[in-house]
């Protein structure tokens, strides 16, 4: 997957932001609005009508419709044709709602007049296109003179049954208020004469029959409404029947007025006007779950809707939105926006000079799982955006230290002597293959690592070595490119030392890292290999109850791995069902992208949503997913729980308890010791550490607070050495603190026979400066 460098040298530029934003289509106009030549905000209008807020609805019309009292009664509402409700009971009766609205008393609407400009415009004709052009130009601050051929402004409007004289006069009164001058066209006056006599541009309204002679059969350009003579524009073009619809008159008058303004400003007439007039919208609206609802029929057909009927009709509006990604991602819901909004917030976060970086928590909480991109009709990738933003923060030393520190320390631990191990198979001098279990499987179940390794040596290839180390995923997810480079280099070095073997990977996150950063290395998934082998006779087969497969999010585009896992499950005769969000649409368990590190509460939300997708037990093939899902109280088995079952767990492999953070580290240390002893007959120097007696309640608290046993031992050792400790006069417990790195740990304990009983522990990042005042 290519990662676009969204941030150049620490800052995302405006242009890149626009490109990123454009991929999210949520803010695109709904079909009704984009079908309207004048782009009336139909969706908001109908929402307001549905709420019975007719004053607000009036204001919406007034914003975009010129002479709303006129057009609201005579528009041919092409929005109805485009309405997505059309196939589900009939489109919203926008025409009727519009009429209902303009029949209500018009509210006071304040407008701020534009400063007067030193240009005068001439408008020929008294029909609607000319009047709209005049209105638009007056509103922009230009002086406007309308030259009429008949006596009255309004022309054919006066012949319309839908309009009373009172309405026409009232609506056109606005022109007078804005200072319109009206002159009767003199025969001697021609267009060139107008331009020579102080007018900067001329509009010719072809919907006024007498104007036809002025253009000499020339048709104006249909985007800019220019004629060949400079400064002359024409609109209100009759169709083949010789008529022109009011909405088109208004649109053409408005578009020509914009061209006239651009003309006098000396800027491009055509640029950036592709979305003027009706256009196909990019907004996607999923109608899969829309139930049909018939159009409201007015009880009195002649009178039309009553207020209540109109409101009821408006409530049928689907309120077209995209928000497809929000339907599958609780994280995107959590921050009360959608990707386009988040892109802007992340951009502001990156460019802010003073003040708080308010988007830090948001951009650090994304699981980088890629589901949004998979779902998005516009291919928006929140993962790319957030990862680049993290890299930018790290680079500028603005990344909150607490966000990823624990995970990076865990990576350093896995790449230390305590876990790292490179070995060819016993008595072999080379490795054609190397098994790479990854930190999480080793931490979750070290026995499985040993059993799998023995299985591979015996059933796949004798020359299979073992590599225990971290794949650098935590550094990648954290956006720390320096640490990522170091860890990747170390990985490549190990691979070289092993004689460049074909890697067998148990974890799909490791797979992602190898493919991303070390494409020269041949890799296979453990599951693809196992699927080609005879499974052990001792495997647990025919689980009685059905279960669903949870695909890890890093297998999203690894259908080969997904197929292999299902094939193994079939061989084990496991009654497998599919989750709705599976394979390329799978959902993250809340650990991906270090979501759990940066925002534990968000990760819990994510996890709960996943767990609640099915009442059935889960089966997965990522150790971290198993830990997360099991931690949420869900019976969740790892595929290896079935392949290498513990005798005690044969009946319920999914019931194995979650392994906490300290336990995971202990397991990794123990794995190295045990595997060296059992397979290579080497004995490591045994550690002598005081035993910690910790109740399950306290242990849970420690895991939540990310306090490891090693932190506790270090704190007690420090207290014993320095003599700096406190004692409770009530309980007799000791209390000591220690700051081994950027965190101060407090431990409340009492010495016990062979170690210590731990009553409580907590930590903070602020440093006590110590001196007595």
């Amino acid at each position: 997957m290519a990662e676009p460098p969204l941030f150049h040298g620490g800052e995302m530029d405006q242009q890149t932001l626009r490109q990123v934003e454009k991929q999210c289509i949520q803010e695109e106009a709904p079909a009704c609005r984009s079908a309207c030549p004048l782009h009336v905000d139909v969706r908001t209008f109908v929402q307001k009508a549905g709420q019975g807020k007719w004053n607000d609805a009036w204001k919406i019309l007034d914003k975009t419709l010129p002479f709303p009292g006129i057009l609201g009664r005579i528009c041919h509402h092409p929005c109805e044709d485009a309405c997505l409700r059309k196939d589900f009971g009939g489109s919203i009766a926008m025409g009727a709602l519009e009429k209902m609205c303009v029949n209500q008393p018009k509210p006071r609407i304040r407008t701020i007049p534009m400063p007067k400009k030193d240009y005068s415009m001439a408008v020929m004709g008294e029909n609607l296109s000319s009047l709209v052009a005049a209105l638009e130009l007056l509103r922009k601050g230009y002086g406007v003179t309308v030259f009429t051929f008949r006596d009255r402004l309004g022309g054919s409007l006066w012949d319309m049954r839908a309009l009373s004289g009172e309405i026409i006069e009232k609506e056109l009164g606005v022109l007078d208020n804005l200072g319109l001058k009206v002159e009767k066209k003199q025969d001697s006056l021609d267009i060139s004469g107008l331009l020579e006599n102080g007018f900067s541009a001329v509009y010719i309204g072809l919907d006024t029959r007498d104007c036809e002679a002025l253009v000499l059969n020339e048709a104006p350009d249909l985007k800019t409404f220019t004629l060949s003579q400079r400064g002359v524009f024409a609109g209100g073009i009759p169709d083949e029947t010789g008529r022109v619809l009011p909405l088109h008159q208004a649109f053409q008058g408005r578009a020509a007025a914009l061209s006239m303004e651009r003309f006098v400003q000396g800027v491009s007439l055509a640029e950036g006007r592709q979305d003027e007039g009706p256009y196909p919208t990019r907004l996607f609206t999923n109608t899969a779950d829309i139930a049909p609802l018939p159009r409201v029929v007015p009880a009195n057909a002649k009178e039309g809707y009553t207020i209540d009927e109109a409101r009821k009709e408006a409530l049928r509006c689907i309120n077209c939105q995209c928000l497809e990604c929000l339907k599958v991602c609780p994280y995107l819901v959590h921050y009360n926006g959608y990707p386009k909004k988040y892109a802007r917030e992340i951009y502001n976060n990156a460019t802010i000079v003073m003040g708080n970086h308010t988007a830090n928590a948001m951009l650090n909480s994304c699981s980088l799982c890629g589901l949004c991109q998979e779902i998005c009709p516009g291919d928006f990738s929140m993962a790319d955006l957030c990862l680049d933003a993290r890299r930018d923060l790290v680079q500028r030393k603005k990344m909150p230290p607490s966000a990823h520190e624990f995970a990076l320390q865990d990576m350093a631990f896995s790449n230390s002597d305590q876990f790292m191990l490179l070995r060819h198979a016993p008595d072999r001098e080379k490795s054609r293959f190397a098994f790479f279990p990854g930190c999480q499987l080793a931490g979750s179940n070290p026995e499985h690592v040993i059993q799998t390794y023995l299985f591979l040596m015996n059933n796949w290839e004798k020359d299979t070595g073992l590599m225990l180390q971290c794949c650098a995923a935590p550094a990648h997810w954290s956006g720390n490119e320096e640490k990522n480079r170091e860890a990747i280099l170390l990985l490549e070095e190990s691979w070289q030392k092993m004689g460049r073997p074909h890697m067998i990977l148990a974890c799909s996150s490791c797979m992602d890292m190898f493919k991303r950063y070390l494409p020269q290395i041949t890799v296979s998934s453990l599951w693809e290999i196992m699927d080609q082998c005879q499974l052990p006779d001792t495997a647990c087969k025919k689980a009685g109850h059905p279960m669903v497969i949870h695909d890890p999010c890093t297998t999203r585009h690894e259908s080969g791995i997904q197929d292999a896992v299902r094939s193994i499950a079939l061989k084990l005769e496991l009654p497998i069902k599919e989750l709705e969000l599976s394979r390329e649409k799978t959902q993250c368990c809340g650990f991906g992208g270090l979501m759990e590190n940066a925002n534990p509460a968000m990760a819990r939300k994510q996890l709960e949503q996943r767990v609640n997708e099915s009442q059935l037990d889960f089966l997965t093939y990522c150790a971290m997913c198993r830990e997360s899902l099991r931690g949420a109280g869900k019976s969740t088995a790892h595929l290896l729980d079935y392949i290498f079952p513990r005798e005690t767990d044969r009946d319920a492999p999914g019931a194995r308890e979650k392994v906490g953070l300290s336990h995971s580290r202990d397991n990794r240390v123990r794995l190295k010791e045990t595997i060296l002893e059992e397979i290579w007959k080497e004995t490591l120097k045994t550690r002598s550490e005081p035993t910690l007696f910790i109740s399950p309640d306290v242990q849970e608290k420690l895991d939540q607070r990310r306090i490891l046993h090693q932190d506790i031992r270090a704190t007690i050792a420090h207290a014993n050495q320095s003599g700096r400790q406190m004692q409770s006069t009530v309980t007799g417990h000791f209390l000591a603190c220690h700051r081994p790195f950027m965190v101060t740990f407090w431990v409340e304990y009492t010495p016990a026979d062979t170690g210590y009983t731990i009553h409580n522990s907590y930590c903070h990042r602020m440093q006590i400066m110590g001196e007595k005042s």
Partner: protein
Amino acid sequence: MITNLGIEENKEWKCLACDELLKLDKVRIDYMNGSFTVMLPCCPMCGMALVPEEIALGKMLEVEKLLEDK
């Protein structure tokens, strides 16, 4: 300026080395570019200060997060 964390004097903890009950006193605490003076229970002899759990996980955590986002 002294930031009040709302800690009340309590007579539970004593400094083991000095055998003195802790008393509220001014202590400077720092994080990133922030520095505050707060009242914390301290040993009147050696000055060793105690950060109670509810402060570490409450007020202090809030301030840490604010400073990290500066």
